[in-house]
């Protein structure tokens, strides 16, 4: 059984309630307990929620941190959030929509289908290599490099705006920051001061996974990392993650705000090439995944990785390893990126490859490798001719080094995990880099002074003097807990939240639970008979 599911099933009703509330309110954002207590479910006390937080920490579903001398904050790691969501809302599903109810317009058809982001990241890395991998003397990226990479990424600023994220470097466009963030996270790029190195082994290791694995891992990364800044988006992203592949879905039946967030997230996923959009005959927008987010366990296939046609076209199936595609990015012209990527070996890119120090011999070794058989002779002769038109000067460049590393196929499947970067290029609200993780609190600490109050206050219903009643109420307020009141012979829970005083004396406001209903009430001490403090039981996970 899934570990997260096991832990959630073992939670108390209080723990589960707390989990639901904090997920809805904060998503993956850090929060203080006071913030959570403003959104306590009617009929639940703050103490119950506080105990719930401790329970969740002990269950490993939540963590707490402190930054310097600041407040203690709680947070749910991204992947954990996504996994919990499925278990907390098991009955929440989108409406499945049949394809026969969809309408098609020629304008929509003519729009360019976005390439899956994984492909674009590969193009971005290739552009980075083509630009030389060099930073400026001030340690920033050259404008030309950024422009080329951003063009390859083709991310729409409009769709990214909903994430409410910003690059750490103000002058850096967000798409470039996101690209660097992932590249550093995966360890393809290693920044050493002003130098940038391409760690080809790790890049190859990523490229050589199946497309399904690459893209589904990217979807999970974006869901866990970049949906964090906006709680409604985090919830939408987690919900949408669970939709089945290739099934048209609509969230229109859900609560409006949530539905809007879902549409926003789906729009972003579509722009990143992972979903498709359509419109029903009734004018409703529907979406479906074109990525299988299930556990893609199939291993990548071995060579041939591509097929080379005698006319110079090279076909690279996208579902397989992209070792071939990446190499071709450095020596050929990309004709199209689609279900099958198509490259063209022709004069201009090969001349440039020669000028960048890539020898014809290396190119033929690569082509024979990816093709699984000898390249057609006519094409060999054409390539020789084109390369001879280059400057003829052999030199070492970032591009030639990368190509050589690619050829040695030194991908180490046991690559050690990449080191976390100094600073992430994207400012993320749940970045715990400067925080100290804390241990779960002792539940007893929530009820300071419990030993000093009479046991009878919390063990039995009794009549008290108004001043003592006030004391009990004040204790309940401090401990954010409930009291039980005998009102006209019925014992009813009451959660006080404020004591008010005026010329008539003192009264208390709070939530009164009566016959299953919770109502905001103002009570004067004479309005009940007996009372007692309610100290919630702590369910240790």
């Amino acid at each position, binding site marked *: 059984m899934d570990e997260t599911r096991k832990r959630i099933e073992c939670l108390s009703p209080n723990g589960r309630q707390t989990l639901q509330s904090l997920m809805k309110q904060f998503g993956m954002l850090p929060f203080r307990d006071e913030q959570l207590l403003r959104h306590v479910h009617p009929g639940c006390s703050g103490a119950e929620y506080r105990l719930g937080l401790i329970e969740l920490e002990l269950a490993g579903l939540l963590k707490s941190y402190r930054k310097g001398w600041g407040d203690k904050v709680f947070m749910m790691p991204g992947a954990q959030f996504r996994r919990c969501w499925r278990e907390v809302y098991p009955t929440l599903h989108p409406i499945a929509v049949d394809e026969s109810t969809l309408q*098609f*317009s*020629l304008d*929509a*058809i003519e729009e360019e*289908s976005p390439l*899956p982001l994984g492909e674009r990241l590969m193009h971005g890395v290739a552009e980075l290599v083509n630009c030389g991998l060099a930073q400026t003397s001030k340690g920033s990226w050259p404008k030309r490099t950024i422009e080329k990479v951003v063009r390859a990424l083709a991310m729409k600023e409009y769709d990214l705006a909903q994430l409410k994220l910003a690059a750490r470097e103000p002058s850096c466009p967000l798409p470039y920051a996101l690209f660097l963030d992932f590249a550093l996270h995966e360890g393809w790029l290693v920044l050493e001061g002003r130098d940038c190195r391409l760690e080809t082994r790790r890049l190859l290791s990523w490229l050589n996974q199946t*497309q*399904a694995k690459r*893209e589904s891992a990217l979807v999970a990364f974006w869901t866990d990392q970049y949906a964090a800044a906006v709680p409604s988006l985090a919830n939408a992203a987690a919900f949408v993650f669970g939709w089945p*592949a*290739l099934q048209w879905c609509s969230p229109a039946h859900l609560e409006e705000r949530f539905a809007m967030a879902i549409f926003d997230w789906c729009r972003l996923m579509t722009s990143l090439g992972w979903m*498709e959009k*359509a419109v029903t005959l009734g004018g409703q927008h529907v979406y479906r995944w*074109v*990525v*299988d987010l299930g556990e893609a366990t199939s291993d990548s296939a071995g060579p041939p990785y591509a*097929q*080379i*046609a*005698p*006319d*110079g*076209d090279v*076909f690279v*199936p*996208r*579902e397989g390893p992209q070792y071939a595609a990446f190499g071709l990015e450095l020596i050929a012209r990309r004709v*199209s990126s*689609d*279900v*099958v990527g198509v490259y063209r070996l022709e004069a201009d890119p090969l001349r440039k490859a020669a000028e960048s120090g890539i020898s014809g011999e290396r190119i033929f070794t690569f082509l024979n490798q990816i093709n699984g058989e000898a390249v*057609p*002779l*006519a094409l060999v*002769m*054409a390539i020789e*001719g084109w390369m001879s038109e280059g400057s003829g000067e052999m030199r070492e460049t970032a591009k030639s080094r990368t190509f050589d590393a690619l050829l040695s196929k030194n991908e180490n499947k046991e690559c050690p995990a990449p080191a976390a970067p100094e600073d992430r290029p994207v400012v993320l609200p749940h970045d715990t880099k400067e925080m100290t993780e804390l241990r779960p609190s002792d539940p007893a600490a929530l009820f300071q002074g419990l030993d000093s109050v009479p046991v009878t206050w919390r063990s039995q219903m009794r009549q008290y003097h108004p001043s003592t009643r006030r004391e009990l109420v004040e204790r309940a307020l401090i401990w954010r807990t409930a009291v039980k009141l005998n009102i006209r012979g019925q014992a009813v829970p009451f959660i006080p939240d404020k004591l008010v005083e005026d010329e008539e004396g003192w009264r208390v406001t709070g939530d009164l639970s009566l016959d299953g209903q919770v109502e905001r009430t103002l009570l004067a001490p004479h309005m009940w008979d007996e009372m007692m403090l309610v100290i919630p039981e702590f369910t240790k996970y």
Partner: protein
Amino acid sequence: MLKREDRPFIVQSDSTVLLDERHRDAEAARQSLSRFADLTKRPGHVHTYRITPLSLWNAAVAGMSADEVIGELGRYNCYELPQKVTSHIRTLMGRYGQLKLIRGEDGLLRLRGEEKLMEQLMAIPYLAGMLNESGDGERIASPEMRGALKQELTRIGYPVIDLAGYRHGESLNVQMREVTRGGKAFGLRDYQKRAVDMFYCEERMDGGSGVLVLPCGAGKTLIGIGALSRLHCDTLILTSNVTSVKQWRQELLDKTTLGDEHIGEYAGKAKEVKPVTIATYQILTHRKQKTDEFEHMRLFNERNWGLIIYDEVHLLPAPVFRMTADLQATRRLGLTATLVREDGRETDVFSLIGPKRYDMPWKALEEQRWIAEVTCSEIRLPLPDGERSTYEEAAGVEKLRIAAENKAKTEAVSRLLERHRGKPALVIGQYLRQLHEIGERLNAPVLSGELPHAERERLYAGFKSGDIPVLVVSKVANFAVDLPDAAVAIQVSGSYGSRQEEAQRIGRILRPKTGENAAWFYTLVTDGTKETQFARRRQLFLLEQGYQYEVTKWEKPLLGTAGGELEGMGAN
């Protein structure tokens, strides 16, 4: 992006289809695709098709529905069909049939469709200028607007079913012979009969106009004659050059009951208008000054033509398109080996000539031995030292000429002909000096543009009969010359022209041969020169057509020394 099935093709989201010919189901998939997609190229194992608006409308004309097309794609596709592609198909095919053109009793044209669509169309100023209000879901146009209306509607994505009918034209008593005038038994081949049937479409009101696509060597001329004989009417035949005019005439006389008095040539010096008149595009578009009228366009109105045949319709010049727009009441037959036009006016062919009615795959013809199996080879020759320095010092077109006129080529031609001794061969080139040198070395006549037509006809006749085993020809061979028994073609220099010229050169040797049904096409290229660039372009074209292509180096020592062989002859 999802699970891959073991099937023969992959549909890309831009409506390209990549077919792997090695797959066990490739042939079935190919046959399916040919009904609604156009083959773009077929180098190597992966053949590329495109599903275009035209290919879908042609499928609709042939009776296919969008569901059928999508079903066929789904059957052979490795992955889930991209939604963009299914949307594309449904929307475009859904448009076929939405508009119909009918002739009213008053002679006016009636464009009929849903009123909502009519209103959308009337919002387009150019269309509104051609149409007048009538009733709900109907607009009226004058008969003269028939062509222009269809052209514009097709251009904006709304093909029209033309049910306005045709005039029969002047009757002509003509039948196909069972025995040719030359005394040979004759009959159309099955696929030729089928092509004529598909064009005529007797049972359909929208039949009677369209384009037939058949590879070079498939006998398109005979199919044109078959259509003419079926319709029994005065016919105007338009073709690309004078030699082709002669060829049509010759075939009409040989294969039909028509006599000299029925056939007129309207080209060059001749300006005969007879029940069957054959003219060139060139004469129709001739004018002394750019501001003058096209005086010969009146040919279209000289007789009551019942049929106009556009031979090599892919070469139709723009002015002829314009004239054709006014001839929509006359049946129109387009013949071509490729619908791809250099100027991209395929939609005009569709709207003004008619939809594709028949498309015979090259491979099927080869397998049925209706055309020869061709092997294409490029032979790279070194430039002799003495010529190398001249080449390096030259500039521009002079460099090309030096490379083309490489003296080593003459020796290579001789060796190649030796290899194919006894087979009728053509040596084709661009530079007359070189051609004359080769002619002298081989003791073969040289056929060039300088020769009068009569002399050219004499040399053709000699080549056909076998009296002349080798003919050296210049650019004139680019044109539609009928030399049925050429088995070998050696290209010593090219005009480096369009793809159509390359197709025609191959076409010269594609006719089926008795005995060994094979043909060879050689191109001699000087290594280390600009010629190799043009060679690559040619190579690409031939590869895309699916021809086997080999490249070898000529290892013979420099001229003047003995020995040397063609090394490395064989597959890539």
